[in-house]
């Protein structure tokens, strides 16, 4: 797996998109953007692109690109699946993946009172150190293997951005979908986790 911009066909097509930044978004563009997001997750678009209806526009800190994240109303999101008794998308190793996301949250969300997006980037060593604290003592190889697997899963789903060559990790655009009450829960979780700087081996 390489960087997300080259693996994801939807994201990689961003510059060939016929949508011109100046034109207001029509219904066709909206439908197209939703279909793309449905197939490939959050979309990476040039910074000036207006957000189609129902999508959240998240500018990158660098300023030249932005993310479009589909934001469905609360009455239509994944909670409905649970209400209907349907299974959501299958996630392998759900507990380890959730723990790794928590670790990334601890490392990349510097001030939990600030907005969660875009956060800062963290070295993978720090994330792995926090992850190791969360999972408990484990064989070094097993630890690394499960961490990398979880990183890939989360990167693919847009929950985090993993720059594999630069060895840095950031929160992905999907984290902006957490609601206010959910963020409160996450703040509590954030405080319960150890600070990466205090851990041995976290220096990247």
């Amino acid at each position, binding site marked *: 797996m390489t960087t997300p911009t080259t693996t994801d066909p939807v994201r990689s097509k961003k510059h060939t998109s016929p949508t011109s930044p100046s034109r207001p978004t029509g219904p066709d563009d909206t439908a197209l953007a939703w279909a793309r997001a449905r197939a490939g*997750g959050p979309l990476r678009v040039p910074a000036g692109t207006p957000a189609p209806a129902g999508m959240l526009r998240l500018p990158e800190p660098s300023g030249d690109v932005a993310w479009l994240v589909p934001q469905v109303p609360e009455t239509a999101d994944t909670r409905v699946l649970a209400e209907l008794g349907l299974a959501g998308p299958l996630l392998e190793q759900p507990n380890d993946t959730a723990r790794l996301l928590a670790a990334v949250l601890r490392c990349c969300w510097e001030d939990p009172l600030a907005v969660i997006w875009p956060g800062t980037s963290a070295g993978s060593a720090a994330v792995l150190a926090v992850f190791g604290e969360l999972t408990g003592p484990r064989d070094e190889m097993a630890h690394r293997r499960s961490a990398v697997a979880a990183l890939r899963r989360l990167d693919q789903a847009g929950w985090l951005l993993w720059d594999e060559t630069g060895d840095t990790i950031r929160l992905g655009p999907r984290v902006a979908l957490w609601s206010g009450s959910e963020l409160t829960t996450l703040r509590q979780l954030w405080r319960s986790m150890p600070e990466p700087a205090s851990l041995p081996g976290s220096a990247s």
Partner: protein
Amino acid sequence: MVDDGRVQDVQGGLDDLAGEAAVLRVYRQAFAVLAREAEKMILSPQLLDVDEAILSAFAASGSDGLTEEQVRNACRAFPEATVSRRFEVLKGYGAVSKVFERPNERFYRAAFAPYIMLLFLRRIAERGGQSELHQLLSMEHESVSAPAATDADGRASVERLTQVFRLIANELSIMSLGADVAQLRENAQLLWGNEALISRAERVHATVLERWPALDRECQWMRAALAAYRDAIDAAAGRLIERAGTTRALGLLPAEEWRSFARTADTARLGAVLDTFVFDAPAPWFDPQVMTEAVETGGRPDTARMPPPRPAGDADAAGEPEAAAAVDQDGIRSAVEELLATREFIKIEDVLRVAPDWASARRVLAQLTAAHLDPALPYTLTWDEGLDVAESASPAWVTPGRLTRDQEAS
């Protein structure tokens, strides 16, 4: 089919009596399949299967009819006592009768009415009688629209429909008042939600009222029955919806309703149904609550899985196969040592050819292979290329190889 014997009141007297007798006969035949014994109703659906088997045996028999023994033979999948009891019941109701009415007649024939009744019963059991009701309404409409129809036909038709709708409305409103919601949902689906039913009945009503204005009293009764049915539907629906709350209980409407909606609605309307059903991209969603739980259960070393406690008796059972394996190991070791004696290796082909017959050669080979495969035993079996053929020898062909005793282990 009960209507077939409708009393013709053109001629009185004996004709009337004959007509009534005919109605009674068909009625008794039709209900024979419901009777367990004379004057009693059937209670278990298995008996209906027996009846069906008996009637299909008659259907297959041709014009000669069947003897009772032949019927029993044809229905041998069922207990014989049950079959002959059912046969007696069918005979008692006239559903099965002698081919010729004479003493010592052995051949019987079956009437068709009971089988049609069975078909109706099965369909009603499956679909709750709704499609029968639709068919009945179509038939009634046809009969009152026929040019030859008289006002008596119209009156009978309207009276029948009034009764049908009164019965349904009563059942439904009693259920919507008293029954629990689960029961209501189960039964109500088959009874309610039929705008089509009501509008068909209204069409019959309109036809009758237009052709025979004198029947306005009967038509009024029918209007009242229809209104009662509609009220009962509303009450039941109201109770169900109130209990269903905000959950998307798709079972609230009968499946036919969804199916016909899917067929008849235009694209925009069909799409509007799913307006609130757009899901996020097919990626996993992380609920913070779930994340917190995962983190909390993570770091604890004591969450490592412990083997479940075993009952004390299990220890013996677990020990036994191990002991057996050890004995086996010793047996193999001694057998191989016997073959090896003081040598460090032996040739397979020599050992096998020395064996007195094929069976013992096979046993030796099995022991050598077992010795090689057992990691606890210090023997290695290596096979060479090729095939050693000897026409007169006991195993006619042998692949050469050697069994070596491992130095470091011995």
